[in-house]
């Protein structure tokens, strides 16, 4: 790791995570909600890789691979659900589904 030290990367990860959190709470579009969860994943990934490089081992990268796997699985299932919900009400507004009844 160069002169730019560990905490700089951790700060970038924290900022990405917080921005994703704000977006997840504020946006109403179902697809953008899931994009914001992916943003939070990005922050976590930056943290994992930075710690892995800091400790000089490969555990961070291995965990990143598993996070990518979970993100891919989550994206496929979530988008399947979004397509299903869109077919029912013809809208992507998350507020339409606040009572969780079909």
């Amino acid at each position: 790791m160069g002169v730019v030290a560990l905490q700089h990367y951790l700060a970038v990860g924290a900022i990405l995570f917080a921005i994703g959190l704000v977006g997840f709470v504020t946006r109403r579009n179902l697809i953008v909600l899931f994009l914001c969860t992916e943003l939070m994943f990005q922050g976590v990934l930056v943290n994992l890789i930075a710690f892995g490089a800091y400790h000089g081992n490969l555990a961070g990268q291995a965990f990143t691979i598993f996070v990518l796997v979970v993100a891919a699985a989550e994206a496929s299932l979530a988008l399947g659900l979004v397509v299903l919900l869109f077919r029912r009400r013809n809208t992507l507004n998350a507020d339409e589904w606040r009572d969780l009844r079909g």
Partner: protein
Amino acid sequence: MVGPHAAQLLGQALIAPAAILVLCIVAGVGTVMLLPGRREGAFRKIGGAVALAAGLVLAALVARSAVPRSAGDGYFWVFSAIAVAAALRVISHTRPVYSALYFVLTVLASAGLFVLLHADFMAAALVLIYAGAILVTYVFVIMLAANAGGGGAEGAEYDLYAREPVWACAVGFAVMGVMLFVIFDKAGALPAPAAVRAGDSVRDLGLYLIKDHLVSLQLAGVLLTVAMVGAVIVARRYLSEAAPDVSGQPAALGDDNPHNIPVFGTDNPRQKQYPET
């Protein structure tokens, strides 16, 4: 690459907690203004400029405290600035397609950060999986739902107004402030970093995964398969939702006689009046 000055450098890179607090408040106010709402575009542009200025001041403070500079540091600042600015646009753009494209920009900038951290394979995998596969799926779904909501050129109605932007930004930027405070406050207590790994990082990573995480790797494959099958099941169109039946008789769900399947262009009385495509 990491010499004896690294520990003393970690001790130097501190920022006053008050500065972090003020910057988070300013960035939060800017983000509240930037989020889509019932205000005109100039107001949102001012908000974006405020948030950007807060980020730049934070970067300048951090950069000032890291005294010995090296040539590769510029890439870190460029990549992180691109990542954070694109992330702000992801949550503030009123059209989901542009949000997805700005997210691709964030992913690419993160991949650049990974390269700086000697994680070459993960940078490539991030671009391939995130920017390549996942985001293409997102864009497909966005295109599928492109005409929903009845909005005009600006986008659907529910994309134009953020939900509770003030409280959400208060909570989100409080979380950010706490995390930044901990990161920069505890930086002096960190032990010295380990030496940079030399050699073929991709080969090392593959050997490490096979040797130490073999079962987890197989489970990841099983998880992906289960998710794929589950997505197909979830998004499947049931027969009752399909095209209206011509014969007037409802097609029985349990009827799996192949001669009863409606086929275009046959003498079957229940054939469809239109081709499949």
